[in-house]
């Protein structure tokens, strides 16, 4: 170790990788991963969220996790976003591309992508 900067660089590089274990993200993105969700394509949605959150360096405040059946199989893949102090947002019929937009506009920008939410989606 030649300098403090070198140490800081390692810390920077590693931080995203262990932040997961703190589990205290203010924002939680929960992907429905029951059989119906997986069948409807929830795996790529989940993986896209994980990648995008890491890419945007949001791991310290955003946790991506999965859950079981939310109970609205016809709307799968379903993704719910919980932010402290706010009403949860339920996105339905998600795809990897839609996930990227949710990260960019909602998680980063703070603006709900209302065209993907359950209230605005018809079967």
């Amino acid at each position, binding site marked *: 170790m*030649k300098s403090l900067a070198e140490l800081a660089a390692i810390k920077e590089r590693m931080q995203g990788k262990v932040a*997961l274990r703190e*589990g205290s993200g203010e924002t939680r993105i929960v992907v429905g991963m029951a059989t119906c969700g997986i069948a409807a394509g929830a795996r790529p949605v989940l993986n896209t969220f994980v990648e995008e959150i890491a890419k945007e360096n949001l791991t310290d405040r955003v946790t991506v996790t999965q859950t079981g059946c939310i109970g609205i199989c016809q709307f799968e893949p379903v993704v719910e976003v919980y932010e402290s102090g706010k009403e949860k947002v339920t996105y339905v019929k998600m795809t990897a591309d839609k996930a990227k937009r949710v990260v960019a506009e909602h998680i980063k920008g703070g603006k709900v992508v209302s065209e993907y939410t359950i209230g605005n989606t018809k079967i």
Partner: protein
Amino acid sequence: MIRAHVMICGGTGCTSSGSDKLAAALETELKTRGLEEEIKVVRTGCFGLCALGPIMIVYPDGTFYIRVTPDDIPEIVEEHLLKGRVVQRLVYDDSGVPDIKANSLNETGFYKKQKRVALRNCGVINPEEIDEYIALDGYRALGKVLTEMTPDQVIQTILDSGLRGRGGGGFPTGRKWMFAAKVPSDKKYVVCNADEGDPGAFMDRSVLEGDPHAVIEAMAIAGYAIGADEGYIYVRAEYPIAIKRLEIAIREAREYNLLGKDIFGTGFNFDITLRFGAGAFVCGEETALLTSIEGKRGEPRPRPPFPAVKGLFGQPTIINNVETLANIAQIILKGADWFASMGTEKSKGTKVFALGGKINHTGLVEIPMGTTLREIIYDIGGGIPNGKKFKAAQTGGPSGGCIPASHLDTPIDYDSLIAIGSMMGSGGLIVMDEDNCMVDIAKFFLEFTVDESCGKCAPCRIGTRRMLEILERITNGQGQDGDIEKLEELAMNIKTSALCGLGQTAPNPVLSTLRYFRDEYEAHIYEKRCPAHHCKKLAVISINPEKCKGCSACSRACPVEAISGEIKKPFVIDQSKCIKCRTCIDKCRFGAIEIK
């Protein structure tokens, strides 16, 4: 892209309950499922709940699984890691409410009252990856002292924090460092005492296994503070996992030049050598430890001169315990005030205890100083198994004493424990219930010190043996009038005349049990009975003729044919043949066999 981390405990407790196989099974299953790119398996140090191992924690949600076997792996992978449905039957539950399970570790009663400083990384990082330690602020404290602080400032910070030695004595760490810093010498040493030897204690082992870099970083900081460039870790050879992780950690630290020459480009040099203990308890005593590192027989020597003046190879040396060192980097980073804000007036910070004996959650806990024994045993430790009554807790190992139920609400710190006749010790805490005989407990600890006495001084070598002989006599039913007084006289003489701490404290278990449970000694001696029904020679086992149905189950089970009788009539035990093995008590379905 990794989306979940599965932490599997790799401490000694969980390794012996099969966590190696568990990790292997999980890795295989993840591969078969094609999840190895998404889920990372991390082997960590001790989580603390050793009784419930192997332990597994899944992040980001923090689900806390206990007693996981390789057979459970397919279900965990399919249900939890793939579908996100927690496998409820494996989740740890101490809420007492069947429908509400604490899914996350931090919600459990076991963790809620804990405050983890020395153990902060145990169970959180992979101890074999230096990068993970660095990610959680590792080596930042070393960087800070080398680039921003003078050695005097470092010592002042440790002094202000109020940190006292966690190995048992409770000597202020900053003062120790100050003494060694003041002695002029070209060569000084920093020694880490990892020769944890108290029966039932495993705090230091868990720190070394779970967070070895914390100890290495602290030793380098201490080296800078006192002007030493060389350190030794004296670790028990009986701790193979701790040794392996230390070796890896030292190698990694050297590769990053966090040990070696010109650390952080500041011109400061420091390196560490590992020394393995040879298995003698006395080598945990600081002067004996130094003699042992020098390659000589591990025997204590009189102090002064204290090691801070004349220690290893005749040079000024500081010796700190593992847990003490595990606090150092945190104090540097968060400040002396932060550390001093925890604990009691004279005992700052937290203390790690190894819970053992008659307690539901055998394991490792870290609590702020000043927590009461009741909180540790009932709120964190889950109470006494099988609805038995608490009788006493033993702290301080063979140097300590017993704390009776009347002192359950004493806030635990160095001084309060000494005031009630025990001591903090290194942190072993053994809980005893109504079935434990206190004379027998005193005998157990004295057997240990007699065995471990190095033999150099007569009070310890001969005195403790004489005391043990008296205790053996008492528990065998041959106690005589005057035995208690003889024990007390011997104890006082040994305390004042033995050479080192081992001998001076050896009578403590006897003195403290005499102080609180004198009636039990008297019952053994004058009434020839053991109130806890523990001492075999004093027990009388008999059959209550009113309850006996004459089924003969007891007589068939008796290994010495001491029980006889006619079917359907009460049986009797021949006391001259009975060996008090109690097999008959277990066999009787009518509760007819009584022990007095």
